[in-house]
């Protein structure tokens, strides 16, 4: 059996769904954050596989950008979480409902 594009894509979708579930279900902000990263990486995987199978480097270039942006996002996001924790002494999202009017 040769490993084709669809296999990569299936793995990518599974990773994406795991990440999404993590974001939606888990209460811990750090874990939700990991879910987000997982979703980004699922997209990266899909882009890389498309790039490989279509002999087009555009997808890989895109992935570089995504990795860069993700790194920046992690820096900002983790800083926010730390700041939030300092202020509220919690990182459980069920306690953070101040967006409600």
């Amino acid at each position: 059996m040769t490993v084709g594009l669809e296999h990569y894509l299936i793995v990518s979708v599974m990773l994406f769904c795991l990440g999404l579930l993590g974001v939606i279900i888990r209460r811990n902000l750090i874990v939700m954050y990991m879910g987000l990263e997982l979703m980004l990486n699922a997209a990266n995987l899909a882009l890389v596989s498309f790039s490989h199978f279509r002999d087009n480097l555009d997808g890989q270039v895109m992935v570089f950008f995504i990795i860069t942006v993700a790194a920046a996002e992690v820096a900002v996001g983790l800083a926010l979480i730390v700041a939030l924790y300092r202020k509220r002494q919690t990182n459980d999202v069920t306690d953070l409902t101040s967006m409600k009017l």
Partner: protein
Amino acid sequence: MSKEQIIRFLPTAVLLLPLISAVLILLFTKRYRQLSAGLSTGAVAIGLGISIFLFATQGVEKTEAGSDPKFTWLSIGLVENDSPLPTAVGQESFAIDIQTLNDPMSRLMLLIVTFIGTLVHVFSLVYMRKDIGFSRYFGALSFFVFSMLGIVLSSNLIMMFIFWELVGISSYLLISHWFDKPAAADAGKKAFITNRIGDVGFLLGILLVWQQAYTVNIASITGQVSTLAGLLIFCGAVGKSAQFPLHVWLPDAMEGPTPVSALIHAATMVAAGVYMLCRVMVLFTPDALLIIAWIGAITALLAALMAIQQNDIKRILAYSTLSQLGYMVMAVGCGGTEAAMFHLTTHAAFKALLFLGAGAVIYACHHEQDIWNMGGLRHKLSKTSITFIIGALALAGFPLLSGFFSKDAILMQAHLNQKPLFFIGVAVAGLTAFYMMRCVLVAFFGKARTDQAKEAHEVPGEMLLPLIILALFSVFLGAPQIGLAGYLGFEEDKASHHAALIWGTIAASVGMIGGYMVYRNADTDPLPAKLGVLSRWMRDRFYFDELYALLNHWTQETLSYASNWFDRWIIAGLGVKGTSGAIDVTGCLVRLFQSGNLQTYALLTVIGLLSILAWILF
């Protein structure tokens, strides 16, 4: 400017002077009583001078149409020659001009209005001397004269309607002059609203005339329009000239100051309706004329009957005015505009005299208006009573006084065209003589019945002067030698003239003798005992006011209840509260989604995204 142009401009000057005076008084001189009165009196007196000049120099000659100064107020259709706009069939353009009309009829009317106006101003100088609203009174008086002159000089129906409404509002101001007295305030409102009912008809009539004759210019209306249009135009006259069934406002309007009654309710405003009818005479069909004549006759008869059992001296005169206006309208209905204008002129003189005389009596008796509280005034107020009696005789149609000739003309007109109306007219002549005899005998003869009457003393000269002038006119105005009838183009028919002469004289004599017999030495009114129910009906004005109140109760209050229900439940309930309620409920529902929980939002975002995906893909 040449001499010609100046003369053409004169009617406009007469029209504008009172307006200028009214504006000056209301804006600047309200605090200076004498100055205000002087301005107002001066404006109308100059107007009188100009009117006499116009009347004397131009006589019956007609200026060519369209030569008088004008400005175009409104133009519809072809505005310029090179920009044709779509217009109605048979009509290229339409313009409403504000233009004065200078013909024999308007010159005569101009003279009447400014003449009576001047005398009333002079009379008011004394009568209103102690009034707190002295300046306001003269301002309103000037404004009224302006509006009335506007009607007289109108060259088209739209312009006439504008001034028609101005007369309505200024008469409201004058009737409610003593606005802190509820009766006066109500009377003003009543006059205004009753007039408004007629005016709606008038406006509709003007629109119909415009539709059917393609013009509202009085000079260019040459043919008949439909009966409906004619009757709607007549509606305006029914309101202003207080004809049945809109006659109810005139007696109540007696709440105004007495000089106002003399000006508005004898000589000018109520004459406007008759004048207007005479102006647009050509557009009435025979059917419309028949109805007009009968309305006039009914008014004349009913009002004369009501006058018999009134006790307030001003109300007697008010009903008598109604009755005489009915006479004039009847004359118009019988095709006799000349007779109507003739009677209008003489009536203006003797009725203004009677009203001013009544004013003098009221002034002398310290605001006592009930004739049964007077009596014996002949000795105390000898000059006033002589003038009053002359006026009463003229009104009653005493031979060779002015009223005799004009009444004769109307009766002749009725005899020529409508025999039944002729006999109603004769009956009214008899009744008129009767109630005037009653009024004079009770108020001026016999012995004084109250202290007020005993202590009455002659009024000052400024008040007497207008009375004496008017008395002279009341005596001589109708005489053939004066030539008023000839000026109006009145033509006599031998047979009808004789019938009118004989029957009219008989009726007047019977009325006067009857009145003398009944009221010779009466201390109380003997009629209620003799006539019973009929007398009560006369005294209570045939219950027209009550009938209207009842009608109001049924129609207006039902309507207002329905409107209230509609407003409360449909507009406020369904419309306003319904809308706000729907938004409220939606808001409550939507609020449930806004939990503030980050993960709920994420889930909803995903669901939304998935549904969009599904919608795109499948």
